[in-house]
């Protein structure tokens, strides 16, 4: 995280003034996906860029140190070395932006990353993820423990009880959802969030980051997300400090597309290493 959002005096009129033209948002969302196709070398380069935005995530009840370790290894080597060489990108140090795990797995992740010599941050979901319906005291304690274990980024679940009653909180990064909801990252919702980020930047000069999470599985989706951010916020937001994609299976599809770009063939399941 580059600079923290130092916060501003809470001015609820900023929020109460906001109006969303729902049909127009839907239209814009449709346009972004149709109007900015990215092909050939551009597609390969954009996909590699997308890799560097991924918070490679495992958030399962049955996570153990073994699969967290495998995840961390994949975070360090997200794309097969020979494919990167073919693209002359092997010396760019391409890794995912972070790994993202439950608080109890932070230790495993820190250890595994250290073992492979990778200095990417460990992010942890905390604060009663995914519902956030635990006591404030335990939520704060959860954050403290995760940080003690070596997590440097915390995805905090905001209390939706407060939001729905109009009591807002501020943050450095905003995320579409936990990824555990029935509907997660959608373009219309993202447009509204990105416009809010832009307005806040125009008003205060503070850049708030953006993280869509949940349901982003295909390489094509990730390209649309990149152009969405590029169109709405501009290139200055297209860096890991301000943009992340929370995903677990996206990376393997990107790797398949890169494979196809380099070889002209579609990869078999066993051609690419699993994470």
């Amino acid at each position, binding site marked *: 995280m580059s600079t923290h959002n130092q916060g501003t005096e809470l001015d609820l009129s900023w929020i109460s003034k906001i*109006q*969303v*033209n*729902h*049909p*127009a*948002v*839907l*239209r814009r969302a449709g346009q972004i996906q*149709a*109007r*900015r*196709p*990215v*092909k*050939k*070398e*551009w597609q*390969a*380069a*954009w996909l*590699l*860029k997308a890799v560097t935005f991924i918070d490679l995530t495992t958030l399962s009840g049955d996570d153990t140190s073994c699969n967290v370790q495998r995840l961390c290894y994949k975070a360090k080597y997200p794309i097969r070395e*020979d494919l990167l060489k*073919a*693209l*002359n*990108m092997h010396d*760019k140090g391409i890794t995912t932006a972070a790994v993202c795990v439950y608080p109890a797995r932070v230790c495993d992740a820190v250890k595994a990353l250290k073992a492979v010599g990778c200095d990417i941050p460990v992010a942890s979901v905390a604060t009663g993820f995914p519902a956030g319906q635990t006591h404030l005291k335990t939520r704060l304690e959860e954050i403290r423990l995760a940080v003690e274990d070596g997590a440097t980024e915390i995805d905090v679940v905001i209390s939706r009880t407060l939001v729905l009653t109009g009591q807002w909180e501020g943050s450095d990064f905003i995320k579409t959802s936990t990824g555990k909801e029935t509907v997660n990252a959608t373009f219309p919702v993202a447009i509204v969030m990105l416009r809010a980020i832009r307005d806040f930047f*125009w008003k205060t000069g503070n850049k708030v980051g953006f993280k869509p999470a949940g349901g982003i599985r295909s390489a094509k989706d990730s390209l649309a997300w*990149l*152009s969405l951010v*590029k*169109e709405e916020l501009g*290139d200055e937001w*297209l860096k890991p400090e301000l943009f992340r994609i929370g995903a677990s299976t996206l990376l393997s599809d990107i790797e398949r597309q890169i494979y196809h*770009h*380099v*070889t*002209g*063939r579609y990869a078999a399941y066993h051609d690419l290493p699993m994470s």
Partner: protein
Amino acid sequence: MAATRAGPRAREIFTTLEYGPAPESHACALAWLDTQDRLLGHYVNGKWSKPEHRNSVPCQDPITGENLASCLQGQAQDVAAAVEAARTAFESWSKLPGAVRAQHLTRLAKVIQKHQRLLWTLESLVTGRAVREVRDGDVQLAQQLLHYHAVQAHTQEQALAGWEPMGVIGLILPSTFSFLEMMWRICPALAVGCTVVALVPPASPTPLLLAQLAGELGPFPGIINVISGPASLGPVLASQPGVQKVAFCGALEGGLRLLVQESVWEETMRRLQARMARLRSGRGLDGAVDMGARGAAARDLAQRYVREAQSQGAQVFQAGDVPLDSPFYPPTLVSDLPPASPCAQAEVPWPVVVASPFRTAKEALALANGTPRGSSASVWSERLGQALELGYGLRVGTVWINSHGLRDPAVPIGGCKESGSSWHGGPDGLYEYLRPSGTPARLSYLSKNLNYDTFGLAVPSTLPAGPETGPTPAPPYGLFVGGRFQAPGARSSRPIQDAFGNLHGYVAEGGAKDIRGAVEAAHQATSGWAGQSPGARTALLWALAAALERRESTLASRLERQGVELKAAKAEVELSVRRLRTWGAQAEAEGQTLQVAALRGPVLRLREPLGVLAIVCPDERPLLAFVSLLAPALAHGNTVVMVPSGACPLLALEVCQDMATLFPAGLVNVVTGDRDHLTRCLALHQDVQALWYFGSAQGSQFVEWASAGNLKPVWVSRGLPRAWEQEAEGAGPELGLRAARTKALWLPMGD
């Protein structure tokens, strides 16, 4: 592992994250042009026609200038052959059951679906428009139009009973147009049973491709015929025997005017500029561009306008990712243009937006309505009440609330003022190609002897012809203007004779100044009358009906003087009274809500008054025709200026006596005098919103010619008599259609 084939650039792009080209292959468009050996002719009666000894024009890629094909320049006999084919096709096509036509249109939609790639690449290639706009917009809508109109054809026998297809429709396309504009006109024409001859400017192959697709469908080859030729062939097409109507296409959408409230001006400009900076221009066939190019001529036009605006003191903002070379022109925002500068009055060219601030919504409405154009507008406001107020107040054909540019086959598009008076799509679009069953076909006769400069210019002088001998008391002398009888400006009178050659009475000799006064009076009454509830309008028309009933004996005896038998005279008065009652009952708003696929929310089809409607009544049926024309005009909220029967204006003046006591001043104005002269004054008046003329063929021709000045909708009889006593011709739905204009109001919803 297979050999690698990656390019060297990925490294660079990884850092810049720029967009790359996403070219759409136009191989299929070129292959299609090859099937014609790169020489395009006309498509007539299901066959290509390439007559010899014709000049040819190159069809070029507007961006690269590459020669794609040669196109023939048609001549008069080519047009004649096409019209002949369309006439022959009309014989069978119009007699088919609607359901069969519906099937054929559905098949055409399917053919378009099957060959859509060819259609969109060809259109984008030759017009330079962004391919995604053609692919996702035009081609899809073209199919929807065919499907919608297939449904209309299917239900035609029930829904449009009492109407019949006009015949052969001529369609004249401007030099820049989208094939979709053509579809908006062709689909309803074909649906109701008409056949079409389209005159397209050379070097526009898409209409030819469409005609070929339709022609190859089989049994009805001659229903769409396309002639490629210069605009000078337009009059040839219009004067072909059998051509019942000529429709013009608008050119592609031009630039825009943007009115922004002062309080949000800075914020809006900032957001607009930020968004403009992200627009990408480029070759139309690139799938990742927002804007293509429309050729060097369009570029020069925009450039000239912007330079002039700058010299007149305007601020100019240009942005976006635009290739520097010709023929691209960046999206341009012009602001601070002084309202009185010439550029502020001129039409804004594409791709320019002219923004100006306003203080209140009322001022915005005045600014928006203060132009001669009136096709469409969008209103953006979070206050729904205010947005609706503006939406109702705007004098345009289409209003979008918090949205822009939405289209649906079920929603009529059209315009008012100089943006034209015809309608496409929806229920209104169908009537453009229908006429009431049994009414005579249009004769394409244009008199060469009519002198537009002198028609009705001079008023023949009239002299005293003896004392009046009509029923007593004689109606008050004068012109009925502004609610009272006034002396005419010319201070002279004309004698009116009865059927037996005796003097029936004197009426005032109205002139240009009286017309001006009458139109002014009518304008003053418009907002009051249009604002009346339908119930109030009904009450007033019924009150007039009751008053005429009381006046029955006077009216009947005046009719008798005109040679009508007493029984028939009484029946005519009775029928006139009934007409007022019938239209009064129909004054209830007749708008409706349309359902469309493209958005959630209703589209309102409003029927709004035209404004000041001028009516020149026929000589025959001096009472019945007068009332039959007056009643629908008033029921639909118009104010009127009427020229009563020239043969016997006295009956109309009798009615005026009752209107003087019942009606608000200026609602109805009646000017007597020389018909040709008064017609001339009305047709040349720019602030008359519509003109109905029932009289000679020459007068009709003059009215059509003169009204082109402000494109006011006209309805002329071309010297043909009308059966006023019959329901269809005297009180049919045609009158109601002509008496109001449609507005489509889009109301998208969403939380």
